[in-house]
């Protein structure tokens, strides 16, 4: 029997999981579109910033063709009032949605892991303080706080040199999501560290005179990447949904830029007349979120040492 590294074993398990592979392919496609969105839109010879006043009625701006202006040139229709192409909006919107959710997830993971490891390893006063801090953050009615703060903090960000407009709005979303998100991961990490710190390899490292930072990040951290990876895979889709919910409540990216969330939020006004505005970005979002969730579940199964080999 050939020895295999943990990574090889897990990859082999994932390879056999048909659902996981399909989801992985879908996600790769989504990310490629996110990165290449402008190129794809260029091939389609359209952009979400191009207005098509000829495709909407002069009075009220209703798209002339049926189902929100669906035609050969605009297969998903055009926007009410501006005639902007929905497909192009979707391609560009995906990019901002992915940037927000991916960066916010990375920040959540860094914060959650560092604070969780420190809390679990230090115990005593530090642990107690960090524990209460997490309780405090988790007790806040997230949506209301994020709505109340959006004005003042977005302004503060522009004062700090972030370009005005959507750049600071996007940064604000990333910051609040990671600020309110890290305690969940920190709790998981802390729990794991509590048992890891009693293990022999940590004791050996202490006996050999390793410093605290070395023990935390070179000895303990490598043992944590399984739960961290699973958590990150399940957090990212949550953030995509959260961005949509916040857009609906009026916190988010402003036109002419779009995200999945802002497209959904804008569709609310016209949903009774043109339901496709609601269905198209919603379906694109649900496919993305489902793929992430299923991949996370598969990853959890593959990383479970009790699982069948």
């Amino acid at each position, binding site marked *: 029997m050939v020895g295999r590294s943990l990574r090889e074993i897990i990859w082999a398990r994932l390879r056999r999981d048909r659902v996981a592979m399909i989801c992985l392919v879908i996600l790769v496609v989504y990310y490629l579109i996110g990165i290449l969105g402008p190129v794809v839109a260029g091939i389609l010879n359209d952009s979400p910033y191009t207005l098509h006043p000829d495709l909407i009625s002069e009075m009220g701006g209703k798209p002339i063709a049926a189902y929100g202006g669906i035609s050969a040139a605009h297969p998903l229709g055009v926007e009410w009032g501006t005639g902007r192409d929905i497909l192009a909006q979707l391609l560009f919107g995906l990019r901002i949605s992915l940037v927000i959710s991916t960066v916010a997830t990375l920040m959540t993971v860094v914060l959650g892991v560092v604070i969780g490891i420190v809390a679990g390893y230090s115990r005593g006063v530090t642990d107690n303080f960090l524990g209460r801090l997490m309780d405090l953050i988790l007790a806040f009615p997230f949506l209301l706080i994020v*709505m109340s703060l959006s004005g003042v903090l977005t302004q503060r960000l522009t004062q700090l040199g972030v370009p005005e407009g959507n750049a600071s709005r996007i940064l604000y979303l990333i910051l609040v999501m990671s600020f309110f998100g890290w305690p969940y991961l920190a709790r998981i990490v802390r729990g794991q560290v509590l048992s890891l710190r009693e293990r022999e390899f940590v004791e050996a490292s202490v006996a050999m005179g390793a410093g605290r930072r070395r023990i935390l990040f070179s000895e303990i951290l490598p043992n944590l990447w399984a739960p961290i990876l699973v958590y990150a895979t399940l957090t990212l889709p949550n953030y995509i949904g959260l961005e949509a919910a916040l857009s609906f409540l009026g916190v988010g990216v402003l036109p002419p830029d779009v995200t999945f969330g802002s497209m959904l939020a804008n569709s609310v006004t016209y949903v009774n007349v043109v339901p496709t505005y609601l269905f198209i970005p919603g379906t694109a979002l649900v496919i993305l979120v489902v793929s992430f969730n299923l991949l996370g579940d598969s990853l959890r199964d593959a990383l479970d040492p009790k699982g069948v080999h």
Partner: protein
Amino acid sequence: MVTYIVRRLIQAIPIVIGISVISFAIVYLTPGSPIDKFRTGRVSPQTIANLIRVYGLDQPLPVQFVNWFTHFWSFPFNSTAWGYSFTDGLPVRDKIFGRAPSTLLLMGTSLVVSMLLAIPIGILQAVKQYSWADRIITTFETIGYAMPTFWLGLILKQFFSVQLKWLPLYGQNTLGKQGDIPDMIAHLILPVSTLAVVSVAGWSRYMRASMLEVLRQDYVRTARAKGLGPARVIGRHALRNALIPIVTLLGLTIPTLLSGAAITETVFSWPGLGWLGVQAVGDRDYPVVLAVTMIGGMMVILGNLLADVLYGVVDPRIHY
């Protein structure tokens, strides 16, 4: 048990104070003042100065905080404890107490409906693991869990209210039909369904996992070996232990009974606390925002405590 609860309540005090200080700071540091809407040029500067004094907005911030915080806790006896709403001048306490029953009704109904669906579905999936039924239900759960609440709500509304015209569009009662029970039930169906889809999707997964865990245990095998029928093994022996994690979930969900579901309530214009909070943020109605934030935070703390206590009650292996 009692000492444990007391200890937990004492531990909660700094968190309550923390929530109060931060909510207060957040709300009062936002730019713009509730007085701004009177600065139209038609209101005399004298009147504006009076309004600022009446609302106490001329005091230093720490003084405003202490006034507000000490006042806040007199709410059981004092209808002005939470101040007056900036939008309509009504006492915030009465406004919130007026909205609370609607939230309780909506969240309570959806909690009961979700539990009644999620538990049997989870059991069925665990007992028939990897069957077609399990796979199909899992697929629906995955999709249900992935849908943004407001999107699902809007779609249900679009389909059942706008297209089919079977159910009312928004609100708790048709105008002029206050207190009409059948009318209210018709209004409840869509918001409850929206909330239930998401929670059933999550909870039945827990129930399934928890039931599978229990069914693997030795005592269940023993029960089968001594000749008990499947209904008795699952219904009596396995179910009680499988419900333990669900009880924790229940404890964590109870706070939402009072703090409400901001998004669902907003989609259906359901006159509960969640929608009130969203409206208040939009109107810069500070006293209402503060009260809703405080109630939300308090409910989370109580919910965590309740979850831990319930866990000890249903699982005698746990000692405090």
